[in-house]
């Protein structure tokens, strides 16, 4: 018997939650963060290590719908600052800053006045940055705010980690041999059509044909 393990891996890959499920998780995190802080916007950046860029993966509020996939250099502005130092930060009066990633902010169509940002760290790896822009004025507990933001950051880091793992697994399956890729795709389709038994019946029929064709069938 050959190939049993890689086909099993392919099936496992095919049955991973879809990219959309992970995106929905990240979206939910920025939606809740924005609501809790009464903020104008919240966003999650993923660090693309190949290009050294930060990529918008989820946005709630200002820029929602337009920014997903937009890239900025990883050292740009406050997000870059948080990424390189690994330290959370709260900033008020951003308008005082003549250089703060203004071009990047103008590209996004929104220039914030205040900003909170925290690195997204999973284990030893910094995966990206979570930002909250222009929260409500009540800032009686600055350090408490950071603690709360860190709780969201933990969730977001897990979400980003899952998203990246899924992307890597799919890419690996697609780079495998043709049969592995097909098996992965079929497993994924079956996983998503569990309510309709037609696909499963067809596969069972295919199995009975393959059993007869296989030279060392039991």
């Amino acid at each position: 018997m050959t190939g049993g393990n890689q086909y099993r891996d392919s099936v496992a890959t095919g049955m991973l939650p879809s990219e959309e499920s992970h995106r929905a998780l990240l979206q939910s995190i920025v939606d809740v963060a924005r609501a809790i802080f009464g903020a104008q916007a919240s966003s999650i950046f993923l660090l693309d290590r190949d290009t050294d860029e930060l990529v918008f993966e989820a946005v709630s509020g200002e820029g929602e719908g337009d920014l997903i996939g937009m890239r900025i250099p990883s050292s740009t502005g406050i997000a870059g600052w948080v990424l390189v130092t690994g330290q959370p930060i709260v900033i008020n009066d951003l308008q005082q800053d003549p250089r703060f990633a203004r071009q990047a902010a103008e590209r996004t169509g929104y220039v914030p006045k205040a900003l909170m940002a925290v690195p997204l760290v999973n284990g030893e790896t910094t995966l990206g940055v979570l930002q909250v822009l222009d929260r409500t004025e009540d800032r009686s507990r600055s350090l408490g705010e950071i603690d709360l933001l860190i709780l969201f950051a933990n969730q977001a880091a897990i979400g980003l980690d899952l998203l990246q793992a899924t992307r890597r697994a799919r890419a690996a399956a697609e780079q495998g041999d043709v049969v592995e890729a097909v098996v992965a795709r079929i497993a994924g389709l079956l996983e998503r059509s569990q309510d309709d038994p037609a696909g499963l019946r067809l596969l069972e029929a295919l199995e009975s044909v393959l059993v007869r064709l296989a030279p060392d069938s039991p």
Partner: protein
Amino acid sequence: MSEDLPAWSLTADAVEGISIASNWPEHVTREWALGGATGAGVDVCVLDSGVDGDHPLIGDVDTRVAVVFEGDEIHVVPDEEGDVVGHGSACAGVIRSLAPECRLHSVRVLGSGNTGTGDLILAGLEHAIEQRYDVVNMSLSTTKRKFAESLHELADDAYFQGTVLVASAHNMPVESYPWRFSSVISVGSHEGTDSWEWYANPSPPVEFFARGVDIDVAWFGGSTLRCTGNSFAAPHIAGLAALVLSKHPGLTPFQLKSILYLTASNTGGKE
């Protein structure tokens, strides 16, 4: 005997040879520790993203180097770019606000992309220790465990040669270095807005809490930015360390940490 062994023990006739002059008062106060001090004569290094030397809150920067990859090798070169991120300038301004006459040195290890940051931090710290700066501010950390052992050794080297490392604590539930090492002074934020308030923490690894909330820090183009974060608590302690060292040159990191403890806002030495 071929060579003299290092003095890991103290013979009776050597006791006189190691007498240490002590002018410490019975009750250490802030006035004794740093009253009237300006930081003059003390070399403070900002290991960060570079320092903007033209900013009015920062003033002169004595030396500026960048630690960079050239191919696979790391080199320390003159810093032609300055601060590309803004973080190092912000920290330098805080130090200058407390110790107006200290000599500032910038070692840039951040801001030129995210590849190999841990290696650059290690090389930058090694350079700072070789320069024998009195104080090194590190408002940064690495989460990579593979750097922990080397950082630990460097931190111990610094401690024994008399270079004080001040590092911001990571207020996130991750393991990071070097702030957790006992040979550095680790700093978190308190919620007050007085730069002259600092607290000793009876529950380490964070050893001191200093001002880290709503600070107007130096920012690009001569402007300021109101910031909150542990990144700015550490340079408060670095600035205080510079003051104490300018008034009492030659203190060891152990003695300096003791003075900061004795003069903290919660230990009775404030007045």
